């Protein structure tokens, strides 16, 4: 635990320092810009809640990618699964009208199932035809993209509007917003808790991790790799689908608009890679990325640093953390070893000539 969190923290700090230099070199006031970055993402109730809103999809897509990569399934279909999840919830919310107490859990279920179906196609193709999920999930992204585009500009188009988007879902499917706090975040937190327990403590989670590290070992040990593979793919898809579904259920829009997926899915992939598929690190990085993404708007307002600067910061974090994961660990270890060396020398002095080797 400690070993993983420390390099992560160092990575974040170094990235922020590097960002400081870049800002300074570009002639922006670095400290004020950072002050704006954080005050518009953390230091007011409204800012903090919008950061949590932003974090909601990132946590889920991050978990989705971490589950996939961590069990050796290269699911790169998060964008498609996200869109399909969002579309399914939209269609369900338009077609069905029930009280919120039923509508919300059902919509969540629909999002999960829709996402799982989409990744399930790739899993099925792999099981049946040995097609690599790396390719099929990517290709399915295109299908999902154009399919949803077709739906929102044709069969599901809201005729009263002049751009491709669907009508609103029935209000029963809307997640409440309390005082500016979007309750979608709670759903993401619940998903995080469930997935963490599943991943770190359950039997199937153990098999996923073992399969991710060495599939021959897990197979020899009797794990049913084929089944574990399918379940990991389904869970990974379900989480991305849920991320999409919450975009419809939370917030204010409650309809599927063109471009709703933004970059959430790829950000999730990136987060999982930076977090090295560790669940807690995934959650932390998702929060951190949403802090910079949210705050960068404020930074633009206050010190006119272009909000794209958040991309620069993200890139530095990724490059630094991934590139230095090993070396930071080694560095920390070496420091520990050096300390121990010193202690050993101290001990030896105390003992005088406590030598052992003799020649025969």
């Amino acid at each position, binding site marked *: 635990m400690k070993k993983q969190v420390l390099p992560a923290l160092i990575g974040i700090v170094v990235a922020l320092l590097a960002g400081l230099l870049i800002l300074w070199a570009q002639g922006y006031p670095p400290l004020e810009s950072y002050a704006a970055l954080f005050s518009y993402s953390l230091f007011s109730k409204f800012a903090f809640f919008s950061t949590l809103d932003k974090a909601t999809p990132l946590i889920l897509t991050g978990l989705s990618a971490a589950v996939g990569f961590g069990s050796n399934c290269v699911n790169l279909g998060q964008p498609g699964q996200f869109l399909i999840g969002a579309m399914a919830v939209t269609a369900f919310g338009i077609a069905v009208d029930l009280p919120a107490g039923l509508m919300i859990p059902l919509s969540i279920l629909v999002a999960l199932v829709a996402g799982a179906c989409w990744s399930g196609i790739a899993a099925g193709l792999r099981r049946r035809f040995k097609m690599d999920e790396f390719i099929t999930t990517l290709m399915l992204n295109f299908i999902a993209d154009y399919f949803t585009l077709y739906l929102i500009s044709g069969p599901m188009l809201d005729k009263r509007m002049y751009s491709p988007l669907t009508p609103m879902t029935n209000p029963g499917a809307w997640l409440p917003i309390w005082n500016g706090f979007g309750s979608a975040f709670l759903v993401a937190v619940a998903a995080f808790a469930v997935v963490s*327990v599943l991943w770190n*403590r*359950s*039997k*199937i989670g*153990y*098999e996923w*991790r*073992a399969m991710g*590290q*060495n599939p*021959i*070992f*897990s*197979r*020899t*040990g*009797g*794990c*049913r790799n084929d089944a574990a593979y399918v379940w990991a793919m389904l869970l990974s898809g379900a989480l991305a689908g849920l991320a999409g579904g919450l975009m419809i259920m939370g917030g204010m829009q409650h309809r599927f608009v063109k471009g709703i997926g933004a970059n959430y899915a790829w950000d999730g992939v990136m987060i999982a890679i930076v977090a090295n598929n560790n669940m807690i690190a995934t959650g932390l990085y998702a929060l951190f990325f949403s802090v910079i993404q949210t705050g960068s708007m404020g930074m633009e307002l206050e010190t006119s640093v272009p909000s794209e600067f958040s991309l620069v910061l993200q890139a530095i974090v990724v490059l630094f953390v991934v590139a230095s994961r090993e070396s930071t660990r*080694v560095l920390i*270890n*070496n420091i*520990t*070893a*050096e300390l*121990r*060396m010193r202690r*050993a020398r101290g001990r030896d002095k105390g003992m005088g000539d406590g*030598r*052992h*080797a*003799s*020649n*025969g």
Partner: protein
Amino acid sequence: MQDQFIKMDSITKIYPPDTLALDKVDLEIQEGEIHSIIGENGAGKSTLMKVFYGMAPPSGGEIHFRGRKAKFATPREAVASGIGMVHQEFMLIPSYTVYENVILGAEPAGRFGTLRHADTKPKVEELVDTYGLNIDINSRIGDISVGAQQKVEILKLLYRDVDVLIMDEPTAALTPQEAGELFARLRGLNKVGKTIIFISHKLDEVLELSDRITVMRKGRRVVTVDNRGLDKAELARAMVGRDVVFSIEKAPASLGEIVFEARGLRYVDENGVIRLEGVSFDVRRGEIVGIAGVEGNGQYELVQLVTGLLSAQSGRVFIGGHDVTGEDVMARRKLMCYVPQDRKVSGSAQNMSLVDNAIMTHHRLNPEIEDRCEALLSSGRCRAFTSRLVEDFGVLVPELDAPISSLSGGNQQKVVVGREFMLDTDFILLDQPTRGLDVGSIEYVQEEVVRRRDAGAGCLLISADLDELFSLSDRILVMSRGRVVAELRPEATTREEIGEYMLGAKDAQEDWRAREEVGK
């Protein structure tokens, strides 16, 4: 003292965070000698050599080579100074040819960076001739035996013109014949002036080959002695600090019912090569059945068919009276434990922690490590389980959360063996169970196998080590070309006889070649 060839002075190595692997080791090696290093698992033999070879930086101490202070930052620098090492796990590229592997990293580049084979190919061929290595340099690594691969590793070093050859457990994966060849080769190299550092757990080999022997224990050098009039027991005592029994005592087998049966197994691989044909035998409770054979004669496929990792084209497998032919691995693992041949690939996940490696298979079968909820594992209980394994099997570990890769080779093997024995099943399948273990641990594992046998378990043992087969087995089956060609009793046969069966010079059941002709 002044002009030592190799002189290591007070070498200390601490693996982070705080494993003291070498504790002020002094070692001198003279030019042109064969110097063996022996010691328990985890004594620091490999580490000492890695430090010398530039693979691991020392935490303290100095190395002098040819009278000059040497500090190799990388193996490449060591090689440039004339020092080469063959690791226990070979580092060859399977899809490249022997020649390509040899020149890899030292390619003769012409103008525009193109390869110039005209000069080097004859040079490599000449080396093969001079040292009598007897390999075809155009064959692919993936197609040649382990013994031949090792020749390639040696050839690689000769090509780089090294004067010092370090060999870390070179014989662990070799058949006795191949090991014999290797010794002849090493002696030949020694005669032309190469210095050889040899690490092994097989004391007979060490006594046969070396000029001087260094014994290490717990990160320290215990003693260095000339190999004159030494005996095995003495060496073993110096190594483990107590007397070691080399051939274990066991009562005659008292046979119970059949616990394992193979009936007419036939397996043809995807290239259409017949790997197993008509293999039938059984194992009873209370006996140890050994399988002898030159590697690649169907033992590997047999093991895979028994564990369920492969399925046979025809024939049936029974374990504990159940027909498990169509069952998957986990269903069979309820009835059997299995120590696989290669701990790195099938026996462990090197990056996972010791605990995660120890609970494999138990995670589904052993309620002891379950949480209150059946689908969850209790991390506390998993740790307790692992501590018990570590204690019972004397595994030397830094901490339970460390990745298993930070254990010495032999200690990793103990984890695998311990994990499987703790499944506590009536049928035990052991594939080279003592590979890489020190004499003390071999004794422990072998005694444990006999204890299980006496408690009524049936054991199938595949081993390349004839000594092990002779001392453990109640019956020995010999495999050759995918068939069981003989069934012998250890007390009524000799190594020579088994060797003849293994090489196919003798066939007790029927003449294989004749059948093959008929088959065509």
